[in-house]
Each structure stands twice: as C-alpha cells, then as structure tokens.
C-alpha cells in the first residue's frame, strides 16, 4: 500500500536560513502532490500543488520540487521567519481518487 514519509522529528532552523522539508512516498506515483501548513488548533491550509510533469513550483518564498524517480518532494522556505513555524503536511492523490496525507513535519524557526 502507498505510504508517505515525512521527517518524523521536529526541524529547528535559524531565522533567515532556508528550511527544507522532505516528503517520500513508496509505491504508486501520484499525478500531483500538495503541501499544506497546519497551525496548532487549526485545520490545514493549502500552500502549493505540483504535478507529476513539473520539476519545480515557486510561490513567493516557497519552492517545491517533485522527483518521480526518487519518489520524493522537497519543500523549501527561503529567508525563513519565526512566523513560518508550523507543521507542514504533504498530500498526494491515489488511483481511487482519495487523497492521503503524511504525518507532517513540525518546523521551528529560531529567532
């Protein structure tokens, strides 16, 4: 069955540096992959979507890459700020039209 693996430990990054989060999947190659941000006590908020035929997608300080050979997506936040501290979830589609989510990575940007 399809599994999504994200950095299980919290990630601590110094303010101003680039934070890089990893999302790996095991079997089926999705048509697209999404990244969401979740703050404590709130529902996830959509950030970026990247399709299987796209290598890279950018939005302001965010950049997502998608490598179907490695079965991996990387999520980068450049010039990180304390306000970027949150849990980041990756999600991908399945052949049966469901979307499955990873457990998320907690990111702490240290001032």
């Amino acid at each position, binding site marked *: 069955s399809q599994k999504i693996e994200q950095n299980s430990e919290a990630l601590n990054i110094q303010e101003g540096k680039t934070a890089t989060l990893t999302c790996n999947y095991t079997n089926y190659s999705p048509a697209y992959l999404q990244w969401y941000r979740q703050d404590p006590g*709130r529902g996830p*908020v*959509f950030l970026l979507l990247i399709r299987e035929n796209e290598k890279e997608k950018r939005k302001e300080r965010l950049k997502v890459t998608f490598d179907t050979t490695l079965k991996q997506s990387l999520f980068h936040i450049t010039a990180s700020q304390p306000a970027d501290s949150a849990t980041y979830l990756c999600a991908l589609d399945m052949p049966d039209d469901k979307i499955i989510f990873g*457990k998320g990575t907690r990111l702490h940007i240290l001032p």
Partner: protein
Amino acid sequence: GAGVSQSPSNKVTEKGKDVELRCDPISGHTALYWYRQSLGQGLEFLIYFQGNSAPDKSGLPSDRFSAERTGGSVSTLTIQRTQQEDSAVYLCASSLDRGDTDTQYFGPGTRLTVL
C-alpha cells in the same frame, strides 16, 4: 466569503454515547471530505461526498461511523456508541469540484474527547 465551519468546536462525551458533528462547507463547493487526526498522527481519510453521487465510505473505521450530506451542502458525521479510541480532532474540508488538482479548504475541526 465564509470558509468551512464546523460545530461544535469541542465535544466531551461518555463512552457509549452517540455524537453528531456538523460541517458547513463553502457555498458552491460540490466535494466534501471528513478526516480524523489523532495526536501526532497524519490525517486519516474517513468519507468523501461528490455532488449527488454515492459517498465513498471506504475510510470509515467501523460501522459505528456514518455520515450524511443533505441537499448537497451541510454534512453530519455520526459516531454511535463512542469508544475512547474515537477521541481525535475531526476535520471537514470542501473543494470546488473533485477535479484531479482541486484544493481542499479545511474547517477548524471538532475536538472529540471520549471519557
């Protein structure tokens, strides 16, 4: 415009009781999803509604769980004879359609605690 709303925001119940959780999706969104998120876990898909089609119930963990969507809008998730392992945050999301790239908009969730 208004986002996805859920009620109640918190629910504490005793083991064996039934609970109903409500979701109001964004107006005009045809797709509606229910997820469950336990502490430290990812989102677990429960059920998906798309327009007037029969819902995809494949994620429901047991027959104690059921959901309805009336008039293609409001949805209710019902858990009968609640168990302590049902304690979690129940999240609802809606999207404009179930195209293969549609963004899901999440509500704030209902935190269910079964004592």
